[in-house]
C-alpha cells in the first residue's frame, strides 16, 4: 500500500512537468497580447513596449519559460496583470470560495443521487424509477448557465426568497473569522449563526445549480451498478440465509455497488471545477472559476497556467485517493 502510493506519486511528476510545458506553450502561442489588453485603446506603441518590458514579454520565449519554472520552484506563481496582484494572493482569497462551492455541490449530489439510485434500482420500473429517470435526463441536459439564470430569476427576482446573487455573504454582515476560508464551516466553528445563515442562503442556489449534472450521472450510475449487484450470487445467498431485505441491500449490495459510483464521483470533481467557472460567473461567486474566465479574456498568462497546474494536481490526488479507497471498501482489490 505505502509502496504503491509512493509509486503513484512519483508517476505524477512527469505528468505535471508535461502540464507545465504545455500550458506555457499554449498560453504563448494563443493569439492576443496581454500588454495590448492592459494598455487600453488610446495607448501608444511606446506605452505598450513599456508594459511588455515590465511584464518580461520582450524577452525570448525560452528565457520566459526559464523564469517561469524557476519561479514555480520558489513557490511563485507569477503576477496576474488584470487584478494587479500576485496569482498566489489571488488564489488565497478565491480558492476557498470555489472549494466551498464544489464541496457543497458534491455533498448535495451524493445526498440526493445515491438514495435515488438505490430506490430506482430496488423498485425497478416503478413510478420512483421513472421519475428519477426523467429528472436525471433533465439534469444531464440543462446547461448550467441556463439553470443558474432560471434560479436567479425565480427565487430572487420573482419570489424574493433567495438573497441577491452577489458574492458569498450579505454586504451588511461580516464574513466569519477566517479559519478554513469556507464560510459555512468557519461560522460553525466560531458559533457565528448570523454569518452561517447568510452564507448558507448564498451558497444554496449556486451549489444546487452546479450539482445538477453530477447528481444525474451519479444517480444513473448508482442505479445500474446496484441492479448488477442485486442479480449476483452472494445477494441471493444472503436472502436465502433469511436476512432482512434492508440488511441485504444496505449492507451487502450497497458496498459492492458503490465502487463504480466512486470512480464516477472522482471523475465528477473535475467536472465540478470546470462547471464552477460558469456557475461563479452567473452568481458573482468570487472563486477561482470566474477569476480564470477573466484571465482568459484578458490574455493574462500566469493565472491560466497556475490554475491548470493546480487543477491537474487536485485531479491527480483525487484519482489516487479514489484508488486507495477501493481497497478499503473491497479488501480483494490488491495494489501491485
Amino acid at each position, binding site marked *: 500500500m505505502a509502496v504503491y502510493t509512493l509509486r503513484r506519486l512519483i508517476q505524477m511528476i512527469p505528468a505535471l512537468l508535461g502540464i507545465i510545458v504545455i500550458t506555457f506553450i499554449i498560453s504563448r502561442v494563443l*493569439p*492576443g*497580447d496581454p500588454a495590448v*489588453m*492592459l*494598455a*487600453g*485603446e*488610446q*495607448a*501608444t*506603441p*511606446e*506605452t*505598450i513596449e*513599456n*508594459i511588455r518590458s515590465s511584464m518580461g514579454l520582450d524577452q525570448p520565449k525560452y528565457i520566459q519559460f526559464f523564469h517561469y519554472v524557476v519561479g514555480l520552484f520558489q513557490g511563485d506563481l507569477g503576477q496576474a*496583470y*488584470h*487584478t*494587479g*496582484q500576485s496569482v498566489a494572493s*489571488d488564489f488565497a*482569497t*478565491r480558492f476557498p470560495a470555489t472549494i466551498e462551492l464544489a464541496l457543497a455541490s458534491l455533498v448535495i449530489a451524493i445526498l440526493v443521487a445515491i438514495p435515488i439510485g438505490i430506490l430506482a434500482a430496488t423498485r425497478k420500473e416503478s413510478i420512483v424509477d421513472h421519475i428519477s429517470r426523467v429528472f436525471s435526463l433533465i439534469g444531464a441536459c440543462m446547461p448550467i448557465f441556463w439553470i443558474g*439564470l432560471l434560479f*436567479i*430569476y425565480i427565487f*430572487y*427576482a420573482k419570489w*424574493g426568497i433567495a438573497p*441577491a*446573487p*452577489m*458574492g458569498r455573504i450579505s*454586504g451588511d454582515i*461580516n*464574513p*466569519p*473569522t477566517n*479559519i478554513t476560508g469556507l464560510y459555512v*464551516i468557519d461560522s*460553525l*466553528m*466560531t*458559533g*457565528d449563526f*448570523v*454569518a452561517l445563515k447568510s452564507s448558507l442562503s448564498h451558497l444554496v442556489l449556486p451549489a444546487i445549480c452546479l450539482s445538477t449534472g453530477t447528481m444525474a450521472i451519479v444517480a444513473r450510475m448508482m442505479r445500474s451498478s446496484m441492479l448488477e449487484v442485486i442479480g449476483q450470487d452472494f445477494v441471493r445467498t444472503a436472502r436465502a440465509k433469511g436476512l432482512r431485505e434492508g440488511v441485504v441491500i444496505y*449492507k451487502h449490495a450497497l*458496498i459492492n455497488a458503490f465502487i463504480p459510483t466512486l470512480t464516477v464521483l472522482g471523475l465528477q470533481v473535475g467536472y465540478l471545477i470546470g462547471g464552477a467557472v460558469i456557475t461563479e*460567473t*452567473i452568481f*458573482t461567486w*468570487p472563486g477561482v472559476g470566474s*477569476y480564470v474566465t*477573466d484571465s482568459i*479574456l*484578458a*490574455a493574462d498568462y500566469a493565472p491560466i497556467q497556475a490554475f491548470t497546474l493546480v487543477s491537474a494536481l487536485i485531479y491527480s490526488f483525487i484519482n489516487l485517493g479514489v484508488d486507495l479507497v477501493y481497497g478499503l471498501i473491497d479488501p480483494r482489490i490488491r495494489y501491485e
Partner: protein
Amino acid sequence: MLKKGLSLIVVLSTLLWTAGCASNANSPSASSGEKGAEASAPPKAITLAYSEGGSTMDPAEASDLTSDTLVLALYDQLVTYGKKSTDSGEVADTEAIKPMLAEKWDVSADNMTYTMHLRKDVKFQSGNPLTASSVLYSLERLKNSDSGSFLYGMSSIKTATAPDEHTVVITLSQPNHMFLQILSLYNFSIVDDVLVKEKGDGEYLKTHAAGSGPFKLEKWDPATEAVFNANASYWQGAPNLSKVTMKFTKEASNRVLLLDKGDVDMAIEIPAKDVAKLETNADLKVQSNASNRILYFAMNNKVKPFNDPKVRQAISYAIPYDQLIDDVMYGQAKQMKSSVASNTPGYTDAGYSYKHDLNKAKQLLTEAGYPNGFNFDLTLGSGFQDWADDAVLIQAELAKIGVKMNVVNVARAQFLEQQREGNLTAYISKWTSFVNDPGYHLGFLMYSSGSSNYIHYANPEVDKLWEQAGKEQDENKRKELYGKAQELINQDSPWAYLYEYNRVVGMGKDVTGYVYYPDEVIRFYSLNKE
C-alpha cells in the same frame, strides 16, 4: 461500518463546537467600531454595481474604468472640469476649467509657462501637508510610468519647478490648448510623496491609497467589492455620503436585476434592451447621456478596393443607420455624423451627406469600377453583442449591392492585437476620447502618423490643418481649422460612421448628484441620497 460513521460524526461535531472559542465576527462586541462616530445625521451609504473589479489604484497606471473610478475617489488633481445642466441631467463642462488643488494659475504671454498657486490648507489623508514637492513628485512618477506616460507626453510638459512650497511653475515645450484639460485627468492625481517614499514607492500605490481625496479606502478586492468611507476632514468639506460600496458583478442581467429589486442604488453599463424595463419601475430613474463613445466601421485605406474613396462612400450609403439605432440599440444611441463625437467642442457635420441609399451606393460602386460588387473580410472582435448584431444587418444590406462581406470572428485579445498590426481589411471598433477636444481625437485616429490610425488614412490636407490648429491660440480660429479637417474627413469617408453610444446609468429615485463626464467615470463626491 455504520457505527464507525456515527461516532465520526459525533467526534467532528464536538470538535466544531469546542472550536467555538475562536472569536465570532458578528457578535455585538466584534462589530463595534463600525459606525462613524462623527456622524450626527443618519449615515448615508450608496452601493453601485460595476462590471469589472479594476486592476490598480496607482493613478499613474490606471487605464480601465474601475481603476479610474477608484483613483478619482481617493485623489485630487490640480484643476478640474466645471459642470453644466443639460436636458439629460448634469454633465461636465470641459471648456470651463475650475481650480482644485491649484487655487489659481497664471499663464505667460506665449502660453508656454503656467504658474500654479497651490492651496495652503490641503492635507493628505495621512495628515501630511500637500506641497509643491508632492506635485513635482507626482508629475515625475507619471512621466516614468507604463500606462499614463503617453498622457504626460500629450501634455507637452518640458520642465516643472517649485520656486516655493506652494508654487509650481510648469514650462511646456510648445503652446498646448489642451494642457489644462489634460491636467484634470485622473492620471495627473497628486500623490502623498512623503508617505510613498516611506513605503518604498513602486508596488505600494497599486493596492494602497496615498491621496487627499474625498473618500478613504476601507477595502478593495477585485473579486468582490471596493468599500470607501468618507474623508471627514476633506478640504472641500466632508462628502454627503458616509460610505460607498462598489459591487463587481460581471453579468449585465444581474446588474439590471439588482437595481430593479433595490439591492443596489446605482448600476452602470445597463444593456440598451433593459432600459425600457427599468423605466417602468417607479422607484428608479435612468439617466442616459449622449457620450463621447463612438462606433465606426473602419476600412483599410491601403487595401483594395477600400483605397478608393468612392468605394468607402458607397459603403457609407449602404449602412442601415435607423435599423442599427432602433433595432440594435433600442434608441440608446444616435447617428454619428463626423469622425469627432457631437459632444466635442468644435464638432461639425459639414461634408457629411450619407444616409441609407442603396441606389446611390450602387452608383458609386459602378463609378469606382465595381458594378458587380466585391468580396471582403470583416474582422469582428468578441465581447460586444451590438457589434455582432450590426455586422449581420450591414452584411444583409451590402449583399443587396453585390458586396459579399465575410465576418471573421476573433477573441477580443486577438482582435486588439491584429488591429494594432494595421493589416485588417475592415473591422468594427469603438473609441472614447478622454480629452474632449478634436485635436486629441483626430491626432490619434485621423492624423496620418497617429498612433491609433490603424487603417492608414492619410490626407496631407487634413494633416496640415491639424498641425496648424495645434499651434493656433485663438479658440475660434482653431475650431474653424478643426472643422475644415472634419469636413475633408467626412467627404473621404475613411470609416463608415455607425453611431454614438449613450452612457446609461440607472439609479434609485433618491439618488442625486450624478454627473456625466466624457471619461464615463462617476465622481462619488457629488453623489447624495435623499
